[in-house]
C-alpha cells in the first residue's frame, strides 16, 4: 500500500510520495484564463485531464492510495477512476508545498523569477474571481430582487410626489383631496380635466368614475372655496401630474416583469407568498439560495430585525412577523391570530423556497392547500381575542408613534 498526496495549485497538479517528496507533476497551461477555468472545475469537483493524468502516472509508479485535500475532488476521483482515496484538509505534503511554493515554482522550471509567479498568481486569482462572481450573478434571482426594490423605491417617491401635488393643486381645489383616495385617479383627473370648473358630472363619468361619486365631486367643485388659478400655474401642476402618471405605468411595468421572472426563478415561492413579497424576501435574504437556507423562524421575522434585536437585548416581546406581514392572510387576519398565521405561512414559504432552490418542480398547490387548512383551523379555534392582561408599564412608550409610522410605510402605498 503506497500512499501519494495530490496537491493542486495555480501552477498545476502535484503528487507527493510517502515522505512528502515531489514525485510527479502536471502543469497547467501558463494562460491565466485557462488556469482559472481548470481551478474552477477542480473546486466544483470535476475531474480534469491534468489530475487524471497525474494519477495515472502515479499508479504506474506503484502508488495505490491517494490523499486529497478537498473532499469533492476525492469523491469524484474515487468514483471515476476507481481508486482508493482519503481526505486530509491540511495535509503535511500540502503544508510543505505551500511553505515552499516559490522554491518549487523555480526548481520545477514553471517560472524563472519569483516575480513571475507573483504576477501569475495575481492574474489567475483575478480571473477566477471574475468567473465566480459572474456565476453568482447569472442567476436571475438578484435581478428580481433589484426590480422589487425599485418598485418599493417608486412607491416611496410616488407617495412623496402625490403628497406635494395634492397640496399644490389643493390651493385651487382643496376639497378634492378628501374625495379621491387613489393617487393615480387624482393625478389623471388633474391632467385630463384641469380646472375645477371642468369637474362636471358628465366629464367625470366619462373618466370612468361611478355616478354617485361623480355627482358628489361635481357638487363640491361648484361650491369650492379654492382660489382661481391662471393657465401658467395650472400647466405646471399638470406637467408634474403627467410625469407621476408615467411613474405609475413604470411601476406597473416592473410589477409585470417581477411576476414573469418570479415564475421562472421561484414559482413555488411566488405561488405561496405572491410575486412582490416573494421578491422582497429574496432581496432581504440576498438571493434565492440564501433564502432557502433560512429556518422558518427567521423567514417569519425577516425585515423586523430591529424589533428582534431589541427584544433579545431588552427582553421586550419579540416581533411576530417581519415583511411577511404584507401577505393578505396576515394583514387581513385578526390581530390575535396573526402570530399563528405568520408561523404557518413562514413555514410554507420556507418549504417553497427550498423546492425552488434545490429541486425546481412545482409543488405549491399542496403547500397552499395545507396552509389554507391550517389558517382555517386557526380561525376556528381562536375566534375571540384573548382576555387583555392587566395593564403593565409598556416599554419604549416614547417611540410608539414612530413605530406605528414605520409599520404604515412597510404596508405599501396608499391606493
Amino acid at each position, binding site marked *: 500500500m503506497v500512499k501519494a498526496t495530490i496537491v493542486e495549485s495555480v501552477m498545476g497538479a502535484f503528487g507527493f510520495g510517502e515522505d512528502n517528496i515531489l514525485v510527479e507533476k502536471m502543469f497547467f497551461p501558463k494562460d491565466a484564463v485557462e488556469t482559472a477555468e481548470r*481551478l474552477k472545475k477542480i473546486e466544483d469537483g470535476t475531474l480534469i485531464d491534468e489530475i487524471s493524468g497525474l494519477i495515472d502516472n502515479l499508479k504506474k509508479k506503484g502508488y495505490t492510495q491517494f490523499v486529497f485535500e*478537498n473532499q469533492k475532488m476525492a469523491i469524484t476521483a474515487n468514483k471515476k477512476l476507481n481508486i482508493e482515496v482519503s481526505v486530509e484538509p*491540511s495535509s503535511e505534503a500540502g503544508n510543505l508545498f505551500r511553505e515552499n511554493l516559490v522554491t518549487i515554482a523555480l526548481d520545477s522550471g514553471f517560472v524563472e523569477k519569483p516575480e513571475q509567479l507573483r*504576477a501569475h*498568481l495575481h492574474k489567475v486569482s*483575478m480571473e477566477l*474571481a471574475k468567473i465566480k*462572481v459572474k456565476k453568482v450573478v447569472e442567476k436571475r434571482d438578484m435581478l428580481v430582487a433589484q426590480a422589487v426594490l425599485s418598485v418599493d423605491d417608486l412607491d416611496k417617491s410616488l407617495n412623496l410626489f402625490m403628497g406635494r401635488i395634492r397640496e399644490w393643486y389643493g390651493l385651487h381645489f382643496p376639497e378634492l383631496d378628501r374625495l379621491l383616495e387613489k393617487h393615480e385617479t387624482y393625478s389623471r383627473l388633474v391632467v385630463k380635466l384641469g380646472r375645477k370648473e371642468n369637474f362636471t358630472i358628465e366629464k367625470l363619468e366619462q373618466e370612468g368614475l361611478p355616478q354617485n361619486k361623480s355627482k358628489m365631486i361635481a357638487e363640491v367643485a361648484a361650491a369650492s372655496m379654492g382660489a382661481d388659478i391662471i393657465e401658467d400655474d395650472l400647466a405646471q401642476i399638470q406637467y408634474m401630474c403627467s410625469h407621476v402618471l408615467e411613474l405609475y405605468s413604470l411601476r406597473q411595468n416592473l410589477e409585470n416583469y417581477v411576476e414573469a421572472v418570479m415564475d421562472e426563478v421561484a414559482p413555488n415561492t411566488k405561488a405561496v407568498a405572491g410575486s412582490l413579497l416573494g421578491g422582497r424576501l429574496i432581496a432581504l435574504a440576498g438571493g434565492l439560495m440564501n433564502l432557502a437556507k433560512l429556518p422558518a423562524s427567521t423567514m417569519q421575522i425577516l425585515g423586523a430585525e430591529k424589533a428582534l434585536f431589541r427584544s433579545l437585548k431588552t427582553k421586550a416581546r419579540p416581533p411576530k412577523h417581519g415583511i411577511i406581514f404584507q401577505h393578505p392572510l396576515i394583514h387581513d387576519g385578526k390581530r390575535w391570530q396573526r402570530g399563528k398565521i405568520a408561523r404557518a405561512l413562514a413555514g410554507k414559504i420556507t418549504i417553497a423556497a427550498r423546492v425552488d432552490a434545490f429541486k425546481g418542480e412545482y409543488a405549491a398547490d399542496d403547500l397552499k392547500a395545507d396552509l389554507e387548512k391550517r389558517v382555517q383551523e386557526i380561525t376556528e379555534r381562536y375566534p375571540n381575542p384573548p382576555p387583555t392582561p392587566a395593564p403593565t408599564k409598556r416599554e419604549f412608550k416614547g417611540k410608539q408613534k414612530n413605530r406605528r409610522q414605520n409599520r404604515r410605510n412597510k404596508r405599501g402605498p396608499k391606493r
Partner: protein
Amino acid sequence: MNVDLNVKPHPAFEEIFWVTLEDGSRKLGTKNFSPGNSVYGERLIKFEGTEYRLWEPFRSKLAAAILKGLKTVPVCLDQKVLYLGAASGTTPSHISDIVGENGHVYCVEFASRSLRELVNNVVAFRYNMSPILADARLPESYSRMVEQVSTIYCDVAQPEQAKLLADNADMFLAEGGWVMLAIKAQSIDVTKDPAEVIRKETAILESRGFNIKQVVGLEPFDKAHAMVVAQK
C-alpha cells in the same frame, strides 16, 4: 495654526507613517502602492516625491488598533498576508501598501457584491493582491490559491471567528506566525456583554495553541470591537 505638511516614519512600525497636515493634526498613512488611486476616498498626500494615503481609523480597524496603542503590528515589508473578510478592500489596500511589491495579500471574501468592488477598485491596480471568492470557514476550498503566510488578519462577521481563524492557521500559517483577530462582539452574540464575548474568543485561540500578546478595545472608532494579536 498653520504648519507645513510633513511625513515621518512611525517610530515603531515599518512602512507606516505619521502625516502632519497643514492644520497641525497628525494622521496615520501608508505609501501608496498605486500612485494616483484612492481606494475609499481617503486623501492622497505628496511629500518629497512620494505619494502617501491617509489611513482612516474610523474605516479601518487596523488603523484604529494602532492608534489605540498596539504594541506589535505583525505586517511588514515583503510579507505574505492572508486576509479573511476583505470586504471592499479598505484595510487590505493599506496592508498591500505596507508589504510592498515583494509581499502578497491574499484577500478572502464571501460576498460576491463586495468582491466585485474589491476586484474593480483595488486589486486591478495592485499586483501584490489576489482576490478569492470563498467561504473563510472552508480553508481547503481555496488552498490552491494561497501559499504559506506569516500573518493572518481576520475580520469576518461570523459567530465562529476564532475557530475559523485557527482552522486557517493550521493550513496556511508559518511556524511562529502571527494572527490578528478583529472581534465584533455584536455579531457573535448581541445578548452577551462584549467583554465576555471577547474573553471567550481569546480563550478559543489560546486553546488552539496561540499565545495572546495583546487585546485592544477600539472605542471610540468602533463600538464593542476589539483587536486581538496573537502568535502561534
